[in-house]
């Protein structure tokens, strides 16, 4: 047995001559590895690597979207703020204008009332004057008539009497005036 093996070994001693059974087993061993890796395990990991890539890119996309949204919201806020400022300015301006208008209006109203009052005063005075004038005219007529009656009752030639009558008349008049006051 040992002899045979030695002979066989010597035949196989050229290390570059491939023993066939090893060739077959080598092929089988490699096909096992290749089969499992190519059919199942590498497609498995490729799928996951793809998922991971997508997840990472998705995350980046999400972050980008969030950033864009934040940007737009910020811009919106800024616009709103500017609008609010503008509105406030406008309101202030309006209030100012309104105040000014109010003041002018009130001034005008005051003026108008003053004029009204003045006009009323004037007309009152005029009415009073007219009333006084008419009353006076009546009184004067009456007085003149009285005076004439009295004059007629006395001698018109007597100058002294005449002047006495007039004096009396005037005294009467004065008295009346005193009395009416």
């Amino acid at each position, binding site marked *: 047995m040992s002899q045979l093996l030695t002979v066989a070994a010597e035949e196989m*001693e050229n290390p570059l001559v491939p*023993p066939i059974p090893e060739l077959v087993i080598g092929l089988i061993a*490699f096909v*096992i590895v*290749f089969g499992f890796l190519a059919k199942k395990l*590498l497609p*498995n990991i490729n799928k996951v690597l793809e998922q991971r890539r997508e997840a990472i890119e998705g995350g980046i996309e999400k972050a980008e979207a969030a950033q864009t949204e934040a940007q737009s919201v910020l811009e919106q806020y800024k616009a709103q703020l500017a609008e609010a400022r503008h509105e406030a300015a406008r309101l202030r301006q309006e209030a100012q204008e309104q105040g000014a208008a109010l003041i002018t209006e009130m001034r005008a109203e005051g003026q108008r009332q003053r004029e009204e009052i003045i006009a009323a005063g004037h007309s009152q005075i005029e009415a009073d004057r007219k009333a006084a004038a008419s009353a006076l005219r009546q009184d004067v007529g009456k007085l003149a008539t009285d005076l004439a009656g009295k004059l007629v009752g006395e001698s018109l030639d007597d100058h002294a009497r005449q002047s006495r009558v007039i004096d009396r008349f005037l005294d009467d008049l004065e008295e009346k005036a005193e009395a009416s006051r």
Partner: protein
Amino acid sequence: MSADPTQVLAFETDCHIFDGCGFPAPGLHSFLFEPLVGDADSNVYFNKTMLLALLGSIIVVGFFWAAFRKPKVVPGKLQMVAETGYDFIRRGVVYETIGKKEGEKYVPLIVSLFFFIWMMNLWSIVPLAQFPVTSIISYPLVLALIVYVLWVSLTFKRHGFVGAFKNFTGYDKSLGAVLPLSMTIEFFSNLLVRPFTHAVRLFANMFAGHTLLLLFTIASWYLLNGIGIAYAGVSFIMVIVMTAFELFIQALQAYVFVLLTCSFIQGALAEHH
């Protein structure tokens, strides 16, 4: 170089210097194994290298099975390690040489080749196994043949018969009178020498590495007598250094093998110019 294939260990254990015992140098017999099952004469047998080859493929599949069976988008530790290895071959080797578009199809083959070869090489320093499977020419040869069949058929498929012939021979009109010579050399170089060197490069590296490791290991033991003990220490340090070196060479040779594979595929797919 008297081989005794019946011996299980690489050398006699009771042989030391100054004992009147010659140095049991490692040699070709170190690469021969008595069949565990069957008969070496009948070509139907099962030996240590076959066991290691099958075990190795189970380990590779087991590792990737554990890592990639239920892969997660947020990877665990094992998946991370496996992904790093996968990505290194995919990006660093396949995409770099063949390109992403054309190379995607060959990624599974190249990844399988790399990790299979690496595992076969790694057996060299795994305790108890301690034999690089790829130092038996059959294993590198079968892989080189798979690659050979692939790139030759790819060349025919891509360029047609005449185009493939031009591709194999490096046909280039501008060479003028040298063209026949150049074509002959290229033809032999590409179609005959290439698969041979592809296999032998891996085989010889592992063969030499294993021989070196054996040499220093046997010497460490053999010198363990009298003044020899001092030399045994030096030899043992060399064992450690060589083991570390082998660890590097094992990964490097697996890398070189797949890099060449990619370069052959790329050459087959490239437009003739």
